[in-house]
């Protein structure tokens, strides 16, 4: 599969391998890291973002692609939706069928609430399913939620909301226990001890995993449990707008059946938005590791209803996306590959960054190596990349380790004729994660809209400006569980007022006043037709 030019570069990687096995690349000093980020991270470039001109976060900078959606009109005609005759009337409406939505629904259901989950694609079609690397939790004797707290807030550039980090790290062992009890198959030692490894930016080995299908194993377990408990789910039926009542409290949502094109209204005492992030907007033209449905629909809906968005100027590029072969472009190469020993090397076979710096720093170092130092390798299509020296894993841990520890990764490359246990793989940063989202409190409640909760990637503030590996699978479950519990416990005291979509009319008027609103949103699905 590799071309002759690639083979020539790979020989250089092989020549330096024995030396590099002994060599430890120095970690970045804080000021070096700072300069690296400012020089090369796409967030810091002038041409990638602009301030949004309307709505509750007006003036805040965000990627152009996100602003385009926020400055667009609603897809619905707000004056002609039969709000008084809802098709469903439930306690808790969960919008989104990934890990956050499923854990919220299961938790609310446990408490006895009447729950309805609606989702744009199938239950389980979400980034959760694709997360290979692992989930962090401080449950080993040399670790604690306090040590985890420091790693999270340091990794986030000390910008994270403290109360959210506190919730994240203190609940972490509780969600691992919840999953263990649900029969989620974590990789364990024979005595039951969880196998744990480092991830970028961790000070303890607290990355739990289920081989390299961690997210898939969690998601299929939660989905199986949803089905066993017969919790109602409506698939292929995304929400288009939130409904508010006459007191401005969230009262449900307007949905659209994507197969029949019919509209539908759900009245709910509490609503949990778990719609994920914006990877499929292809911010700054980057390829993405994200799921087909990651089009930021929930952010658009919440924004029109009056919720503030925070940290949306901070985008996470995963340092190791596939740069070759073309068919896999943008797909993720899990951080675990570096976690168990693979180094990053340039076309000359030299290391240029400590492999387990935080993701923002490693991404910036790769971009610098290719753009400024011209030491990357460019494929025939012009896609730049650097080598991730995966065969080192076999030298460190023994033959067969790559296939045993990274079966998903190994299989995907094998399909295209590349044996990553023998040859290094070419990688380049890929658009991976939306660090920001809708502003929430420690129970997942919207800071602005009563009775609205947000969980998972759609929420912002937990990770500050940069999330660490293994804290996203964690946050969807921690805040999914918290939102589900809080939302369900409060339903007895909630009386829903007269439903209204006046906020949509008001927003559309604001757009018109600003000369905006030519396009419509949410996007629902990216447009790849005819390309």
């Amino acid at each position, binding site marked *: 599969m590799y071309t002759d030019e690639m083979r020539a570069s790979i020989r250089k990687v092989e020549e330096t391998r024995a030396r590099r096995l002994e060599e430890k690349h120095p970690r970045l000093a804080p000021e070096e890291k700072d300069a690296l980020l400012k020089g090369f991270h796409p967030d810091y470039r002038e041409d990638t973002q602009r301030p949004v001109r309307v709505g509750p976060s007006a003036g805040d900078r965000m990627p152009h692609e996100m602003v385009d959606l926020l400055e667009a009109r609603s897809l619905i005609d707000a004056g002609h939706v039969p709000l008084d005759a809802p098709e469903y009337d439930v306690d808790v409406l969960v919008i989104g069928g990934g890990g956050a939505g499923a854990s919220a629904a299961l938790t609310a259901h446990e408490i006895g609430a009447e729950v309805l989950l609606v989702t744009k694609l199938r239950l389980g079609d979400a980034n959760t399913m694709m997360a290979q690397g692992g989930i962090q939790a401080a449950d080993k004797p040399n670790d604690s*939620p*306090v040590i985890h707290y420091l790693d999270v807030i340091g990794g986030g550039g000390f910008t994270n909301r403290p109360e959210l980090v506190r919730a994240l790290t203190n609940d972490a062992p509780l969600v691992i226990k919840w999953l263990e009890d649900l029969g989620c198959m974590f990789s364990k030692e024979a005595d039951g*001890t969880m196998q744990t490894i480092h991830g970028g930016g961790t000070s303890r080995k607290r990355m739990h995993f289920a081989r390299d299908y961690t997210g898939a194993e969690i998601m299929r377990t939660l989905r199986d449990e949803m089905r066993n408990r017969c919790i109602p789910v409506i698939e292929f039926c995304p929400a288009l707008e939130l409904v508010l009542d006459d007191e401005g409290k969230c009262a449900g949502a307007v949905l659209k059946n994507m197969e029949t094109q019919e509209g539908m209204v759900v009245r709910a005492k509490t609503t949990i938005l778990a719609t994920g992030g914006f990877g499929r907007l292809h911010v700054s033209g980057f390829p993405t590791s994200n799921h087909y449905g990651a089009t930021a629909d929930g952010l658009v809906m919440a924004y029109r209803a009056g919720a503030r968005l925070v940290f949306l100027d901070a985008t996470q590029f995963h340092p190791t996306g596939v740069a070759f072969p073309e*068919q896999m472009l943008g797909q993720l190469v899990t951080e675990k590959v570096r976690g168990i020993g693979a180094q990053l090397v340039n076309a000359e076979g030299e290391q240029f960054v400590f492999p387990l710096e935080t993701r923002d720093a490693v991404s910036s170092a790769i971009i610098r190596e290719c753009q400024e130092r011209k030491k990357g390798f460019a494929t025939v299509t012009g896609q730049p990349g650097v080598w991730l020296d995966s065969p080192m894993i076999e030298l460190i841990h023994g033959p067969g380790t790559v296939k045993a520890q990274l079966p998903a990764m190994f299989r*995907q490359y094998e399909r295209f004729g590349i044996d990553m246990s023998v040859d290094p793989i070419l990688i380049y940063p890929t658009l991976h994660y939306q660090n920001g989202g809708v502003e929430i409190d420690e129970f997942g409640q919207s800071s602005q809209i009563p009775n609205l909760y947000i969980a998972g990637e759609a929420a912002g503030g937990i990770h500050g400006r940069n999330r660490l590996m293994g804290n996203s699978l964690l946050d969807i479950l921690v805040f999914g569980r918290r939102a589900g519990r809080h939302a369900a416990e409060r339903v007895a005291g909630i009386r829903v007022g007269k439903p209204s979509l006046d906020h949509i009319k008001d927003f559309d008027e604001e757009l018109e006043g600003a000369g905006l609103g030519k396009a419509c949103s949410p996007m629902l699905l990216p447009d790849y037709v005819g390309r």
Partner: protein
Amino acid sequence: MAQPEAVIDSAAPEMSTIYIMGKRYEVPKGLTIMRALEYSGYRLVRGAGCRGGFCGACGTVFRTQGDYRLKVGLACQTVVEEGMHLTQIPFYPANKALYNLEELKPNLATLVQLYPELPRCVGCNTCTKACPQGLDVMDYMAKAMRGDIAKVAGISFDCIMCGLCASRCPAEEVQYNVAILARRLYSRYIAPPAGHLAERVREIEGRKYDQELDRMANMSIDELKELYNTRDIES
């Protein structure tokens, strides 16, 4: 705004002829079936998910030129071939037993009670040949019929539950649902629970870390930076 993930070389790419549900289309060589569907003008609602081989949304049945046999694969992971005939099967209406994991025992009787068709397996190996993950499905079904739940869990672990095994099974087994039942039984009852985890949960429920976390949450950024930059890192 949105860009396709695989950039197609605009300088007159080499084309392949394919047949989507019997209808002829010309698509650039080297595309996956999923990209070929989109290139041909299909806007996928069903039949597309993670686009990376993890979710099982894009099961596809196809036939290649000069071959009478039906093959199956994932649209996002299978490259089109000249003369390929294809259709997607994004949903398969297979039986899924409902159960309360807390009331089950990890043994053969449980498997057979929930999936009575299990012993009907004729060992034809069609499931193994169908699996896009390359799993030895027939082998884990054989282990299931002997009640070896740990083996079923281990062998089936990489299953993405696309349902292609069931779609081709002459005995009407639901292999992927048997497999998840086995994995949940194994993890809940056979693998020992993590002692360190139970201990940490007890500590957290006893509010052991509350005070220290509160102290952290109220620290100035300079104090946090100092702590962070001097923290010890497990080797």
